[in-house]
């Protein structure tokens, strides 16, 4: 066995809930001195509203609390620990300089109700970020309000609707390729459109003939992801845009995969009218549980009147002001100008990289994915042979012949110390294994991952049961996902027994 097999990363004991720990009477409070005048509780709240004890409130010593949360933190898998190859999610390492900038007093202690004159620095950050994102994407204006990618999609589609309605007819449907993120058709529906699926062709790209068959005057637009979720660049994108524009429809681009082409290709140059970006993917702000997302939406001038208000405008003297006088705006989509803490981080990242650095990031992301592809091709079935960019999609076809499926492979990878890749997506590939290593991984880390994947492929032939019963090194093995979804337990209840106290 290899060293990676033998070494367990965590204490092997499971951890109970904090409510199930401790014992009445244990305490561990150490409150800081108040920086406000001390008053008696009875002066502030009526006696009848004050109670002496709270049933079930845990009583723990400081050491128990510290160990509880330290153990839980040790269970996390995160980008500070290792490769996180979730395809389509761009789980790149987030440089610590982002955190330093976001924690500067002038940013961290801002209050959203401060007057414009006192937040010129923050407005400058947002304005510059808007300008940078517009330059990177080749678009004209950007709203920073949306709080995540799907929120950006909805914002973009609401603008598409407002655009068509301003021309007298809202139109009925949005074309969505079958390889799209699941959020695309959902956003179209919530924006009041019917989502019409466009099939992919055998090369894994949008089928122009199918597109032609589905094109009619009721089509409000198309939502494309480019490169698409197979990691393949939609080479016909300019022709797709021409056909959409010919019927007065718009092109929405899901910018989830922008990490493949920063400084290389600009959506605004290949016909895109509106797109969202995921700062928590491409621009290295925390993703998933690590922090709130941010999904800025960039548009061409024709859609700018409909952008959420307010926008930041620069006055003649260089000062920034919030412009609420936007009569055609779809309105505000998020309180307080979006997730400001993500804007400062993303701008820090963009400025630290500079134009050449961003281009290099994309080139390295593509190179890393190509390296993984070349090493795993043969051991895993490559779903589509076309050249891929920042991610690559394999399938479990070879392993399925031994009765091992993608879920088993993903679980076994946990034993080797890695977060599994995205699986069972995109839906156009049966048993999909979607790997996006990103540019922030070293050759050594990639090799360790490749080594683990190759070992698992061999195990599928020599010891399939070991893979099917994985993971073997975690506290909890496989959970019953179906039962959890069918009968979710959403609230913890104390075990029945003699009442405490």
């Amino acid at each position: 066995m290899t060293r990676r097999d033998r070494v367990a990363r965590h204490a092997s004991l499971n951890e109970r809930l904090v409510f199930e720990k401790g014992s009445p009477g244990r305490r561990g409070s150490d409150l800081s001195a108040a920086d406000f005048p001390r008053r008696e509780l009875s002066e502030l709240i009526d006696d009848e509203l004050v109670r002496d004890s709270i049933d079930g409130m845990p009583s723990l010593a400081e050491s128990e609390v510290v160990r509880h949360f330290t153990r839980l933190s040790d269970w996390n898998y995160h980008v500070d620990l290792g490769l996180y190859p979730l395809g389509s999610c761009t789980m790149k390492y987030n440089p610590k300089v982002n955190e330093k900038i976001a924690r500067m007093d002038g940013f961290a202690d801002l209050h959203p109700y401060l007057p414009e004159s006192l937040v010129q620095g923050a407005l400058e950050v947002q304005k510059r970020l808007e300008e940078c994102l517009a330059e990177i994407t080749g678009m004209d204006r950007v709203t920073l309000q949306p709080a995540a990618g799907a929120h950006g999609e909805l914002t973009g589609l609401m603008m598409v609707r407002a655009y068509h309605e301003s021309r007298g007819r809202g139109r009925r449907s949005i074309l969505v390729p079958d390889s799209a993120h699941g959020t695309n058709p959902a956003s179209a529906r919530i924006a009041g459109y019917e989502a019409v699926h466009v099939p992919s062709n055998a090369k894994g790209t949008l089928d122009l003939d199918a597109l032609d068959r589905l094109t009619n005057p009721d089509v409000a637009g198309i939502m494309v992801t480019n490169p698409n979720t197979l990691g393949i660049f939609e080479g016909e994108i300019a022709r797709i845009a021409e056909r959409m524009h010919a019927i007065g429809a718009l092109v929405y681009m899901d910018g989830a995969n922008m990490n493949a082409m920063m400084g290389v290709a600009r959506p605004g140059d290949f016909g895109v009218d509106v797109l969202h970006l995921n700062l928590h993917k491409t621009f290295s702000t925390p993703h998933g549980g690590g922090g709130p997302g941010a999904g800025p939406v960039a548009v061409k001038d024709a859609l700018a009147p409909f952008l959420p208000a307010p926008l930041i405008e620069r006055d003649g003297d260089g000062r920034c002001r919030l412009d609420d006088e936007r009569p055609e705006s779809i309105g505000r989509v998020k309180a307080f100008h979006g997730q400001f803490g993500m804007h400062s981080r993303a701008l820090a990242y963009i400025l630290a990289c500079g134009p050449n650095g961003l281009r290099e990031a994309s080139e390295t992301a593509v190179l890393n994915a190509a390296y993984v592809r070349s090493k795993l091709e043969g051991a895993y079935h490559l779903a589509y042979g076309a050249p891929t960019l920042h991610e690559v999609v394999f399938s479990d076809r070879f392993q399925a012949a031994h009765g091992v499926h993608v879920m088993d492979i993903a679980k076994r990878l946990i034993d080797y110390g890695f977060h599994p890749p995205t699986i069972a997506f995109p839906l156009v590939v049966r048993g999909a294994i979607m790997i996006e290593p990103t540019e922030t991984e070293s050759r050594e880390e990639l090799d360790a991952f490749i080594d683990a994947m190759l070992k698992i492929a061999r195990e599928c032939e020599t010891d399939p049961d070991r893979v099917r019963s994985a993971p073997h090194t975690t506290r909890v093995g496989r959970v019953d996902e179906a039962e959890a979804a069918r009968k979710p337990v959403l609230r913890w209840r104390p075990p029945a027994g003699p009442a405490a106290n």
Partner: protein
Amino acid sequence: MIPDDLRYTKEHEWVRIDGDQATIGITEFAQDELGDVVFVELPPAGSRIDANAVFGTVESVKAVSDLFMPLTGEVLEVNTALVDAPERVNEDPYGDAWMIRIRIGDVSELDALLSSEDYGRFIAAGGSES
């Protein structure tokens, strides 16, 4: 398992025709591809739905899939038991897990449905158009 008294679609719905009415569900192949079904959403009785339009969704631990209307028709009855017991779709796709019963709106559409032999060949070839 492809019962030969039913008709089928390439979207993996089955249709049991009974006079001017039809009962609709999803096939054994479909439930096996989906994996454990955790949620089923069906239209209200009384809705009139066109052929090929979406009449509901089925959600498994892997994915959410649309259900496509094999025939134009008015929904007469809905198997609401599936809301509380979605696992029936996995356990008995051709029986307990029927989804809707409709009044057939256009009998000429029956010609477009697949026979059990045609459907068997279709899934043997992968079960997908692309």
